């Protein structure tokens, strides 16, 4: 583990120990260790199939690991009871890759949903909170539109507004810049930095966009084939002597080790 620059450390908000996960018989995560400190932004990077989406699903408690421990905000996900999980969920916000907005609800109703379900605030307070968060993501005045009327970048921003409406301590952001034009994705990067600064949120961003990762990350964790290649600051990752990381940074196709016999067997289908 690579400690962040400042010490003593702020409290740990995510502690992942020796996480192993399978998809069917296939091992997709293998011995993952991860630690996130309060107020830190960590970017999880890796190509497709590296296991970064699977790691996120485990952090969110959507999948159960084969082995290992995941502790979020002091709650051990495997041991937590229903009530504890519920309390934990109120303290975390998630912005999904495609936004995952509810199509039958307006933008405002989408953002208000967590408040409706978890608080007994006055209707007007909830409406103001939702509009405030929409202002934060520069979507003010769009509250009566339906998700189908929004562009991709707008959907992502509304999803972010919904993720932060409860003022979570932990924010997860899946592929913030995927499919967005550079200006919009730069805006989202700024927004992530501002949320950390003002709300002192701890943020995990899963992305394969290098520019965005280098801009927002305190530390970067690089995954490859279900393993952590390296976790380090932006500088450490930039100057890593790990070959796969350099491949990733320079967008080189990966060099596969080849076993001639095995390759032949694969081509002829006689294994």
């Amino acid at each position, binding site marked *: 583990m690579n400690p962040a620059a400042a010490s003593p450390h702020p409290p740990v908000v995510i502690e992942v120990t020796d996480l192993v996960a399978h998809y069917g018989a296939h091992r997709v995560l293998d011995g993952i260790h991860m630690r996130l400190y309060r107020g830190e932004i960590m970017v999880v990077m890796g190509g497709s199939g590296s296991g970064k989406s699977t790691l996120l699903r485990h952090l969110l408690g959507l999948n159960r690991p084969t082995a290992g421990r995941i502790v979020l905000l002091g709650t051990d996900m495997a041991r937590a009871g229903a009530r504890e999980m519920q309390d934990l969920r109120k303290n975390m916000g998630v912005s999904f890759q495609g936004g995952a907005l509810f199509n039958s609800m307006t933008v405002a109703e989408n953002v208000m949903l967590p408040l409706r379900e978890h608080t007994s605030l006055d209707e007007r*307070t909830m409406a103001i909170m939702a509009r*405030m968060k929409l202002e934060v993501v520069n979507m003010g005045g769009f509250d009566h539109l339906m998700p189908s009327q929004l562009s991709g970048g707008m959907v992502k921003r509304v999803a972010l507004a919904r993720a932060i409406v409860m003022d979570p301590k932990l924010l997860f952001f899946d592929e913030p810049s995927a499919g967005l034009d550079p200006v919009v994705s730069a805006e989202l990067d700024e927004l992530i930095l501002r949320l950390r600064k003002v709300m002192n949120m701890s943020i995990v961003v899963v992305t394969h966009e290098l520019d965005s990762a280098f801009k927002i990350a305190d530390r970067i964790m690089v995954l490859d084939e279900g393993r952590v290649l390296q976790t380090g600051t932006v500088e450490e990752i930039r100057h890593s002597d790990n070959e796969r990381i350099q491949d990733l940074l320079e967008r080189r196709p990966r060099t596969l080790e080849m076993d001639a016999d095995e390759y032949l067997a694969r081509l002829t289908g006689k294994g």
Partner: protein
Amino acid sequence: MQCDVRKEAAFDVVTLKGEVDLSTSPAVRQAILASLEAGAPVAIELGEVTYIDSSGVASLVEGYQTAKSRGLPFTLVGASESVMGVLELARLDKVFPLAATLGELTADGG
């Protein structure tokens, strides 16, 4: 959290202390709206607020809007840097009338 209302000069001074969050903001909202209902100008002392979440800010927003529609003054007093940060996030720092101290406010009022 603590939420006390007292009379000072013409103002109803609502003093908040500690953490204003989802569980405590409804009380703040009640206090503010009650004072405005009674026709009093309102000052909110935020000097000892350690944390305010969006439900707290939303209550302030609703209070200010209500005050405006009734033509009553509504001022935030002594907002700390962290409170200002939360207000700035939604660009509300440019919306609310702000005062550094209560003295400043009551002197202005005459």
